[in-house]
């Protein structure tokens, strides 16, 4: 299989862009192009990652300003054509604001910024970021966010579950297992077409044993291997 060409979108305030670039290229072997948020040309790219950070300072709301950056129109077109898009943490929030993924993030339930490893359970293995994983598999990957408390009204949560759009859930029974208070322990979701996935944990921060866990590679490798049906 030839190496995949992946675009990593960079906003003013992105701060996981280089970690993501390193994990995708040096660890996973992809060819990475950094895409500045004012660019519109995604030609030649086979997958897009919207990385974590504080795009546009998260002024107003997380992701609210970034979602109107010029590149997002191209990302929306890319997704509409079935291209795989992965949003990590702030990237997930941006994809929610853009309407590419469902839900919104509230402030963490205890109003603290959380930076710690968490255990997440794979709920679906038919999405661009989880194909080939085992349902029920648990991955240890760090979170680092202040607004990761996934919210949708109950009726819409039911619909999300019925559509099989919950991709990852915070796992474990301890009081700390769902640290941000997410509805139904949701850590990651996909769109109905399953090519766009967002998750709050940072797989790029768990891509090598030297980082304490290499479980993030399961997600990054799955994402790089995914081909639209």
């Amino acid at each position, binding site marked *: 299989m030839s190496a995949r060409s992946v675009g990593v979108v960079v906003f003013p305030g992105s701060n996981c862009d280089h970690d993501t670039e390193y994990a995708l290229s040096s660890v996973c072997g992809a060819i990475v192009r950094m895409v500045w948020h004012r660019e519109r040309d995604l030609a030649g790219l086979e997958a897009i990652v919207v990385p974590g950070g504080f795009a546009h300072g998260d002024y107003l709301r997380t992701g609210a300003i970034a979602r109107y950056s010029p590149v997002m129109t191209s990302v929306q077109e890319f997704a509409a054509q079935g291209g795989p898009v992965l949003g990590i943490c702030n990237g997930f929030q941006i994809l929610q604001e853009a309407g590419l993924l469902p*839900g919104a993030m509230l402030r*963490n339930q205890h109003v603290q910024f959380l930076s710690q490893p968490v255990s997440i359970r794979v709920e679906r293995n038919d999405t661009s970021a989880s194909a080939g994983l085992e349902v029920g598999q648990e991955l240890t990957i760090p979170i680092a966010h202040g607004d990761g408390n996934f919210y949708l*009204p109950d009726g819409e949560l039911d619909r999300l579950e019925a559509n099989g759009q919950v991709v990852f859930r915070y796992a474990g029974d301890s009081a700390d297992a769902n640290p941000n208070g997410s509805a139904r322990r949701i850590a990651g979701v996909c769109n109905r077409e399953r090519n766009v996935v967002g998750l709050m944990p940072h797989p790029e921060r768990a891509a090598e044993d030297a980082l304490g866990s290499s479980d993030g590679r399961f997600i990054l490798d799955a994402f790089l291997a995914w081909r639209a049906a």
Partner: protein
Amino acid sequence: MNIKARVYVTLKKSVFDPQGKTIADALLSVGYAGVADVRQGKFFDVSLEADSPEAARASLEEMAHKVLANPVIESYEIEVDG
């Protein structure tokens, strides 16, 4: 004409407000025993050019819906000065 308006954005009543809860707890701990609940939010003072207050309101509605608030979790109210 130049119009001044204020747009209030708050979490919907049905949405838990972790910041408001923390602020309420703080007020209680300071000694304000009567505090039952706090909901926090923000407002935007917007100065804009429009043909009429009605036109300004229509424009502000769109701004609030598209940008200033996230309709999944937030609601908004608009006040337009005379």
